[in-house]
């Protein structure tokens, strides 16, 4: 299938739906218009407003606005890389390469890796850092506001350069019916890079695709941007702290950003140099990575000397968020603050001493190899310290199962599995067996998905009231969090297992025995994708529709003495802007009380028989509505061929009439309108369900089993699944139609009686 078009349309669709949702909600939230046609003045006003907003966002140097820009940019990149991931998993639904071509698959895992690692994670964390560090440190702004803005604005062109291939390819496809091949040769030449995100020489040197050069320039640009940001964070943390913020009480997230920035400062310049060398090798005939020159292995050393610290650059801010957010929802202080800080510093330093564990199979000197193995095992210790401190923080705590807590707890779980599987990989003989398998993919995704985006999302919920002054939809958020954890666990533990069985990674083709496992992983990945969409919807919709925050302490942090600086800033702003009194949060009980339900839902005293006779005609109307609804479902089932219409003839036979489908259908209608509603009325009190429609659903499910047996005509495989699915759903429609119509009629009758009586 045509990958470029599919991906571009998927992204376009996502962007357009977000925009539409935003505009619609904004319109709904704004002051009510008079319902007239938009006038010219209004239009001009809107355009003016748009222009002013655009100028503001393009030129801002305010740390909070730059922070938002970073977060939005990172989210866009994350969704883009996510679309790549979904497309990867789609190809893997079947063993052969029959959905995308192998070349396309190679391009997908390459761009997926690069987009996620370079353009998604760090920009989002830089955004969070930009927004919150000055608030946490008591600083007015970042140390160098303009450098800050500059650092951000290098990123969009970097992303476009890195992924230009997609647009050029789409362009070529749109142009090719109109222009001769020669004129648009450029468009037909570029395509997305497919050499793997690690850009190993000699393949990356020899591949002709000029998009590799653009990618290298884009990566270099993003490296410069990252370094600028890191310098800014370091200077801000060291020099811009308020009087009372000392190294001993510096908050844990700032500590993590400081260490991360230090790592960036030492790692990224190296990547920049390596990239330039590769660019020179490709275009100017140098021989840094040629066999006659430095050799292809040199690239691997330079790359991983950056690459392993990069792993911690991505991971440390997430642990900082975890250490920040977790204590707030268990009502206890972070256990072992000092040890967490030391472990972070330890990780930072050790992370420069383990790079060759990515190269165990290249045949480096066994003595050196063994020392890298030792270092790699040692690096597990600081991580383990963090885990124990988190667990101890939660121990015996007063846990509030909000969405941020669910995500924090989930992160600890997935991180433990991801981390422990990593320790195995640090062991040379194990790595030699498994480094080229899905075991590796499972291991690192349990971290790059299982803690990094988890904590980003947790932070977005935790600080949403502060960012927007509104609440997100909390039920949806809890649901989404569970979904995300579930999807990730299913997907990536499956990958661990099939990797353990030896399935190689980076392959579009695989042996058929792995198909079922692979399909499970794909369905899990789609669940992750849907969870991401729910999160996006919650963020966008709640911005306009969420309940306004009416207290200065939305998370009730004062009660446990954890009302940290950013919330104090929030309180100050609330007091200043809305004149809210910084009071203790009040407790309000919800109105709906399940115990207050009357026991007989049909609202009557007396025997079952009385109930039935009093309500029979309403039940019959309900039954008729239900039957009509149900026919829709059964009709569709007949249409796609999973239900045999001839089987209706058998009902007639059952009651002793000739086996005609027409007679059968008639009987079916009578049954649906008269018999089953009466049975329902008689038995509903004994069926589970608090409310009538719940009981109706239970009833419908029960009778559907009878239907399934009675109308079965030997369907097998997919047809059987379809048959059962349609029958059950059609019965649900029946149950709902019956109970809701019944309830509606009863309500009207009561209202009438009420009016007549009063």
């Amino acid at each position, binding site marked *: 299938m045509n990958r470029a078009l599919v991906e571009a349309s998927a992204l376009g669709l996502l962007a357009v739906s977000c925009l539409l949702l935003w505009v619609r909600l904004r319109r709904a939230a704004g002051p009510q218009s008079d319902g007239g046609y938009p006038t010219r003045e209004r239009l001009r006003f809107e355009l003016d407003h748009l222009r002013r907003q655009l100028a503001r966002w393009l030129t801002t140097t305010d740390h909070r606005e730059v922070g938002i820009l970073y977060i939005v940019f990172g989210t866009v990149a994350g969704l883009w890389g996510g679309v790549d991931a979904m497309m990867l998993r789609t190809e893997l639904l079947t063993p052969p390469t029959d959905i995308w071509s192998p070349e396309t698959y190679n391009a997908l895992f390459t761009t997926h890796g690069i987009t996620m690692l370079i353009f998604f994670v760090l920009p989002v964390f830089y955004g969070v850092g930009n927004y919150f560090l000055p608030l946490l440190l008591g600083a007015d702004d970042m140390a160098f506001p303009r450098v800050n803005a500059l650092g951000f604005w290098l990123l969009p062109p970097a992303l476009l350069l890195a992924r230009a291939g997609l647009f050029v390819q789409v362009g070529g496809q749109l142009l090719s019916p109109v222009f001769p091949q020669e004129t648009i040769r450029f468009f037909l*030449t570029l395509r997305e890079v497919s050499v793997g995100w690690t850009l190993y020489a000699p393949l990356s040197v020899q591949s002709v695709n000029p998009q590799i050069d653009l990618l290298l320039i884009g990566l270099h640009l993003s490296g410069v941007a990252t370094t600028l940001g890191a310098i800014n964070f370091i200077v801000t943390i060291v020099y811009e702290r308020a009087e009372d913020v000392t190294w001993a009480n510096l908050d844990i997230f700032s500590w993590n950003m400081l260490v991360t920035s230090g790592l960036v400062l030492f790692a990224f310049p190296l990547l920049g140099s390596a990239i330039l060398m590769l660019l020179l090798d490709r275009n100017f005939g140098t021989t840094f990575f040629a066999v006659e020159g430095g050799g292809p292995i040199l690239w691997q050393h330079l790359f991983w000397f950056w690459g392993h610290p990069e792993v911690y650059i991505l991971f440390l801010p997430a642990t900082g968020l975890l250490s920040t957010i977790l204590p707030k929802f268990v009502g206890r202080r972070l256990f072992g603050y000092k040890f967490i800080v030391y472990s972070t510093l330890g990780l930072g330093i050790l992370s420069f001493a383990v790079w060759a564990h990515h190269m165990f199979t290249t045949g480096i000197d066994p003595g050196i190899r063994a020392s890298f193995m030792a270092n790699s095992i040692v690096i597990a210790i600081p991580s383990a310290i963090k885990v124990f401190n988190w667990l101890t923080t939660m121990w015996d705590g007063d846990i509030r199962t909000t969405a941020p807590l669910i995500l924090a707890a989930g992160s600890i779980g997935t991180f433990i599995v991801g981390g422990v599987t990593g320790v195995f990989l640090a062991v040379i003989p194990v790595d030699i067996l498994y480094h080229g398998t899905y075991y590796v993919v499972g291991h690192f995704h349990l971290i790059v998905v299982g803690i990094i985006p988890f904590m980003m999302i947790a932070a977005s919920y935790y600080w949403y009231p502060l960012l927007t002054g509104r*609440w997100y939809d909390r*039920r949806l958020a809890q649901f989404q969090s569970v979904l995300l954890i*579930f999807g990730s666990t299913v997907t990536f533990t499956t990958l661990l297992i099939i990797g353990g069985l030896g399935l190689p990674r980076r392959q579009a083709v695989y042996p058929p025995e792995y198909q079922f496992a692979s399909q499970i992983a794909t*369905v899990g990945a789609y669940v992750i994708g849907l969870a991401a969409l729910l999160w996006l919807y919650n963020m966008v919709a709640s911005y306009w529709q969420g309940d306004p925050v*009416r207290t200065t302490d939305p998370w009730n942090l004062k009660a446990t003495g954890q009302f940290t600086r950013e919330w104090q800033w929030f309180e100050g702003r609330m007091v200043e802007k809305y004149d809210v009194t910084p009071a203790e949060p009040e407790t309000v*009980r*919800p109105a709906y009380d399940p115990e207050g339900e009357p026991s007989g839902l049909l609202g009557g005293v007396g025997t079952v028989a009385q109930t039935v006779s009093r309500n029979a005609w309403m039940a019959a109307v309900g039954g008729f509505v239900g039957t009509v609804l149900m026919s829709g479902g059964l009709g569709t089932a007949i249409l796609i061929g999973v239900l045999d219409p001839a089987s209706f003839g058998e009902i007639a036979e059952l009651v002793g009439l000739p086996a005609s489908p027409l007679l059968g259908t008639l009987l079916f209608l009578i049954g649906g309108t008269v018999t089953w509603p009466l049975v329902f009325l008689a038995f509903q009190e004994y069926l589970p369900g608090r409310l009538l429609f719940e009981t109706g659903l239970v009833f419908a499910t029960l009778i559907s089993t009878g239907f399934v047996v009675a109308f079965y005509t030997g369907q097998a495989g997919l047809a059987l699944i379809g048959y059962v699915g349609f029958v059950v759903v059609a019965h649900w429609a029946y149950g709902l139609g019956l109970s809701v119509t019944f309830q509606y009629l009863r309500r009207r009758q009561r209202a009438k009686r009420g009016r007549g009586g009063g």
Partner: protein
Amino acid sequence: MAAEADDEADSESALFTYGVPFVGVLLVAVGIAAAVPGAYALIQEDLTPCGAPSIAVESPEETDRRFGDAPPPTVDRLDFAALAPAEQAAFEAALDDPIGEAHVEGAFPNAETFRDGTLVTYEGEHYYATVVAENPCFQAAPLQFPLGVFAIALGIVGILTPPAYRRLVALETGLE
């Protein structure tokens, strides 16, 4: 505020607030996995040259670089003139293609030789050519698409259950 939300969630049916949408999401996920490839199977013949393997042809210089002066005898040799028409067309198209690949659309009698990699003699020069992708056609059960769509639709109903549920609760409790 937060405490209030928690209590609100407790007093509602956990089944309809979390359970049903959860199953709904699973159904949508399975439905996508069935419907997207299912739909693709229906239209792919119009979209792609499936069933037509791609070959890659290397220029004489690249071929020299690959083998040096003497290609090993295990590499088969073919003469351009002896190739089938579809093979010839694909070979020439690959020479014109910026990345040197083309589909063999039609009879492919030398497929086995191409799969192993072969030297083709064309206008006096040697070109190394191989099959780089088989491009098999995607096979799907005919019911896969409609059932996938059904699962997606049903799943969406499941995901939208919580608000509908609250409305139904309001309808019934409005009675009292």
